[in-house]
């Protein structure tokens, strides 16, 4: 804790006028190492997610659209072999979010949230893609369905899938 008080957090050190630690003001080699380490480490969860997705997709027999609100699943639609377009809406008081799905994918048709990012995300047609609406805490994602191992695989297969499709709403 002594190191925390370097800049004179106590009155005594104010009086003694200890020389204060001054930082380097130019980009140095240790900075470069730090920046590169962070940049590489940031890739780690994405790579793991890609691997899990690849593994899950190879076992997949179909795909389903899953809608969660506050992390709880409220709606699930099997997309493979879906005959006609279906819609589903969730109401939050006077506001609502409308989801559409057909055999090729699912998308957020309309939302009353301020920034509309979930709507602009567009159609989700691959396993692992997701449209996220943070104001409503709604997540629409495409998961792989596998009759032999239903939910457990689904929960993992979605993780970190479509990198650029994932947007806050």
């Amino acid at each position, binding site marked *: 804790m002594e190191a925390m008080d370097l800049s004179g957090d106590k009155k005594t050190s104010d009086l003694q006028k200890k020389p204060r630690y001054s930082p380097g003001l130019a980009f140095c080699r240790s900075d470069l190492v730090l920046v590169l380490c962070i940049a590489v480490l940031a890739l780690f969860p994405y790579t793991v997610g890609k691997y899990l997705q690849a593994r899950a997709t190879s076992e997949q027999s179909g795909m389903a659209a899953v809608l969660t609100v506050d992390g709880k699943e409220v709606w699930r639609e099997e997309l493979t072999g879906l005959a006609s377009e279906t819609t589903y809406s969730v109401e939050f008081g006077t506001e609502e979010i409308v989801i559409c799905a057909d055999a090729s994918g699912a998308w957020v048709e309309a939302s009353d949230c301020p920034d509309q990012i979930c709507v602009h995300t567009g159609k989700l047609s691959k396993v692992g893609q997701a449209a996220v609406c943070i104001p409503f805490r709604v997540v629409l994602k495409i998961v792989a369905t596998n009759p032999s191992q239903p939910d457990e695989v689904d929960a993992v297969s979605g993780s970190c899938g479509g990198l650029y499709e*994932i947007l806050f709403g």
Partner: protein
Amino acid sequence: MRLMQFPEVAEVFMKYSSAKLSLLGILTALSLTLSVLESLILPFSVIPIPGFRIGFANIVILVSVYLLGALPSVAIVLVRTAAVFAFGGNLTAFLFSLTGGLCAVSVMLILRNTRRFSFFGLSAGGAAAHAVGQIGAAMIITGTWELMGYLPVLVWISILAGLLTATLAVPVYKAADATSRSRGI
């Protein structure tokens, strides 16, 4: 004098010289101003990257980490996020900037205490920590692991933003440092 209702907190700040306390006040006001100005001149429509801001308030935190120390820097972050929330922010944005800001300031303090990194290392590390804290909060709020896929992109652009704010912070630090030395803070 409302602070007196929390004797423990008050006692910590009572130890500071009045010059240091006023510097703390000025820096807090400055970080709040920069925060509000940034959302006015660079709204989401200008930089359409969700959850990303250049974070000009970071300039103030960088200066206070060196000039004032650990506790005042954390105090600035807390007051800034609470004030932005009070002046018409929404709850989710508040939670994101609170977790992000606290992560950033902790990482910056740790990096400062290693004494190995310059302004630029501190700023980039803090910005990356902000991104991680924000995504962590978003994952907890929505209960979605998928958001982790967004981490690399957000961390990379945050590092660039951190290097930019460090460049801007250097002259600010030089001026604040010279003034505070001549005032004996």
